[in-house]
C-alpha cells in the first residue's frame, strides 16, 4: 500500500513540476533574468562604445544622487504626475458615473472614449503636436478668436509638462473609465434599493455612502496603475519635445534613455533603471497591501 501511495505522490509531484516549468522558465527569462542583469550592470562602468567593463560598486548610485540631471528629471516627473494623476482619476470617474446611468448611448459613449486607448500614441502625438502648434495650431487659433494667446504649449518651459499631461490624459481616460465602469457594475443593485429605503436618496449621500466605498478596490487599482503610467512617460517626450525646451520636459524615463542610448553610459542608465524599478515596486506594494486589507470585504 505505502509503496503505491508513495509512487503516486511522487508521480504527482513530478507532473506538477512539469506543468509549472514552462511558466516558471518564462518568468525567469523575461522578468527575473533581466532584473538581475540590470542590477549587475548598474554596478559596472559598462558603456556601449568601449570593450570590457569593470565593477565600480555603488559609484553609479552615488553619482546619480549627486547628479543635477537626475534631480531635475525626478522633479519634472513629479510635476507631470501631479498634473496628470488627479485629472486621470477624477475625469475618468466622473465620465464613468455619467455614462453608467445612460441606457441607450452607453455603449456608443464607451467606444468613443475608449478609442484613444486603441490608437498608437506615437502617431497621435504628432496630431497633438499639430493641434498645439504655437502658430497654426487649432488651439491657438481658437484662443486668438477670443483674444487670448498665443500659447506655446510645447515650447514654454512652464506649460510643457501640463501640455504633455493633457495628451496622456486623452489617451488614458478611456481606459480608466472602463475600469471604473466595471467597478460600478459590480456594485449590487439592491444596495441602492436598500439605500433608497433607508433614506439615502440624495446623490451626494448616495455617492459618499455607497458608490465611493464600494468602488474602493477599483479606485486603488486605478490610482496605482495610473501612477505607474505617469512615471513611465516617454513616447510623447521623445517624439515632441526631446526633453525640451531646455530640460523642462526631461522626465525620468527619458533621462534613462538619454544616458543609455545617447551618451552610451549603460552602467549609469542601469542604476537609473534600478531606482525606477524601486519606485514601481513601491506602488505595487501599496496596491497589494491596500487590496489585502481594508478594501476587501
Amino acid at each position, binding site marked *: 500500500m505505502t509503496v503505491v501511495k508513495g509512487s503516486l505522490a511522487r508521480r504527482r509531484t513530478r507532473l506538477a513540476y512539469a506543468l509549472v516549468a514552462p511558466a516558471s522558465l518564462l518568468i525567469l527569462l523575461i522578468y527575473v533574468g533581466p532584473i538581475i542583469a540590470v542590477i549587475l550592470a548598474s554596478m559596472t562602468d559598462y558603456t556601449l562604445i568601449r570593450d570590457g567593463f569593470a565593477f565600480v560598486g555603488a559609484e553609479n548610485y552615488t553619482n546619480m544622487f549627486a547628479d543635477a540631471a537626475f534631480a531635475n528629471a525626478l522633479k519634472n516627473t513629479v510635476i507631470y504626475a501631479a498634473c496628470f494623476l488627479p485629472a486621470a482619476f477624477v475625469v475618468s470617474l466622473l465620465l464613468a458615473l455619467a455614462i453608467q446611468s445612460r441606457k441607450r448611448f452607453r455603449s456608443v459613449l464607451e467606444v468613443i472614449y475608449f478609442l484613444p486607448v486603441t490608437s498608437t500614441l506615437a502617431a497621435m502625438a504628432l496630431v497633438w503636436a499639430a493641434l498645439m502648434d504655437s502658430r497654426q495650431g487649432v488651439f491657438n487659433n481658437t484662443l486668438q478668436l477670443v483674444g487670448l494667446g498665443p500659447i506655446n504649449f510645447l515650447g514654454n518651459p512652464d506649460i510643457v509638462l501640463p501640455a504633455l499631461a493633457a495628451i496622456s490624459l486623452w489617451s488614458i481616460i478611456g481606459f480608466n473609465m472602463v475600469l471604473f465602469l466595471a467597478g460600478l457594475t459590480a456594485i449590487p443593485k439592491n444596495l441602492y434599493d*436598500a439605500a433608497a*429605503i433607508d433614506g439615502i436618496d440624495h446623490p451626494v*449621500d448616495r455617492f459618499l455612502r455607497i458608490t465611493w466605498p464600494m468602488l474602493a478596490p477599483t479606485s486603488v487599482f486605478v490610482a496605482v496603475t495610473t501612477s505607474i503610467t505617469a512615471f513611465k512617460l516617454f513616447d510623447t517626450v521623445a517624439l515632441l519635445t526631446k526633453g525640451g525646451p531646455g530640460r523642462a520636459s526631461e522626465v525620468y524615463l527619458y533621462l534613462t534613455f538619454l544616458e543609455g542610448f545617447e551618451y552610451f553610459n549603460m552602467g549609469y542608465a542601469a542604476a537609473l533603471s534600478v531606482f525606477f524599478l524601486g519606485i514601481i515596486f513601491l506602488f505595487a506594494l501599496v496596491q497589494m497591501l491596500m487590496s489585502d486589507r481594508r478594501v476587501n470585504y
Partner: protein
Amino acid sequence: MARLSLQGIRKSFDKTEVLKGISLEVEDGEFMSLVGASGCGKSTLLRIIAGLESPDKGTVSIDGRPVDEANPKERNIAMVFQDYALYPHMTVAQNMAMPLIMGRLPMRARLPGMRLLIPGFTSVWRDIAGQVEAVARQLRIDHLLERRPAQLSGGQRQRVALGRALVRNPHLFLMDEPLSNLDAKLRVQVRKEIVELHHSTNLTFVYVTHDQIEAMTMSDRVALLQEGQLLQVGTPDDLYTDPDSLNVARFIGSPEVNILPAQAVQGGFNVGEQFIPFAHDLTPRSDLFLGVRPEDLMIGGSQALGAQQMITLPVTHKSQEDLGGEIILHTALKSLPDVDIRARLQKAAGGVDANIRNLRGEITLAFTASAIRLFDGAGQRIRTDEGAVATHPALKEIAQ
C-alpha cells in the same frame, strides 16, 4: 401600524406585462403573504409598494392616503431583501444606524467627519446609538455590533437586516424572500422568529415568498399570484380547503393535489372507466376535474371508516416514497395510467396497516365525497354545498 391598499396595479417591463391589475387590501397588523412561482410578479409588486418601482397604472395607499408621489423614505416602510443588501463596508452598528442617521441628521451633520466638526448633534448621535443597541439586544445580535457583514453567518446577517428594518419604527414591514438564502434547518427557526416578531411588534407585514409552506405557516392571509394576476386571497385554510381554481389547489399542498379528469354522468362522475358516485345537478359534459388531496386518501377495504360513505378507487401501485413518518404512494387507475394518483399515508397512525411499506400490485384507495373539489374544464371551481353533499340522501342512496 398601517393599512395598505392596492388598486388596479399594472406594470410592464418593455412589452411584457408583469402585473395585470392587482387590487389588494392588507389590514392593519395583518401578516399578508404574496406567494407564487418565480416570475409571477410578486417581487415587482413588493417593490411597487416600497416605492422602488412605480406602477404604470393604479394606486398604492397607506392608511387611505395615496403614496404614489412619495419616495421610499417618505412611505416609512422597512424592507428586508432576499440577500439582505447589507452595506458591506459598514459595521453592523453602522448598518443598523443608517436609516436613523439619514432621517434625523441634516446633510451637513452627517457628512463623513462632520460628526466631530459640527457640534450640537451629540445628543442625536447618542440617541441613535442607544436605539440601535436596544434593537440589537432585542434580536440578540448586540455582541456583533462591531463586526462587518462578511464576518457574519447567514442567520446573523438575516437578523442584522431585520434590525436595520426595525430600528426606524416603520409603518409597514416588507420582506422579499428573506429565508431563501438560509439552510433548511435555520429557515424553520427564523420563520418562527419572524412570526414572533410580527406578534410582538403588531406591524403590518407583507411577505413575498415562492414557498407555499412559508406562506401557509406564517400568514394571516395569503395572496396567490400567477402570471401577474391574483388568483385568490384568503386565509391559509381557505386556500387549502376551498380553492377558487385548479391552479390554486395545485399550488397549495405537498404533495400536489390529485387531479382526476372526469365526465359528469347521472348520479356521479366517470373517471376513466371508474364510476364515482356523487350527487350533483351538473349537465353531463365531458371536461371536468375532480381534485382530491393526497392526505384525504386512505387504503380502502375492510378497515375503511364508515364504509357506506367512502368512495373507493381500485388502483395499481407504481412507486412509493418513504418519508419516515409517512409514505407517499404513487398509483394510477388502469383506465388512466398517465394520471398519477398520490396518497399520503401516516405510518404511525392507528388504523393504518403496518405492512403499508410492502403494498404492491392492486390496491383500493378510499376517500369521502366531502374530500372532492370540483373544477370545470377551464379549471374554475364549481362550488357545491360540501357539507351537505357528504350527507346528501341521494348520495347515500347511490353509495349503498
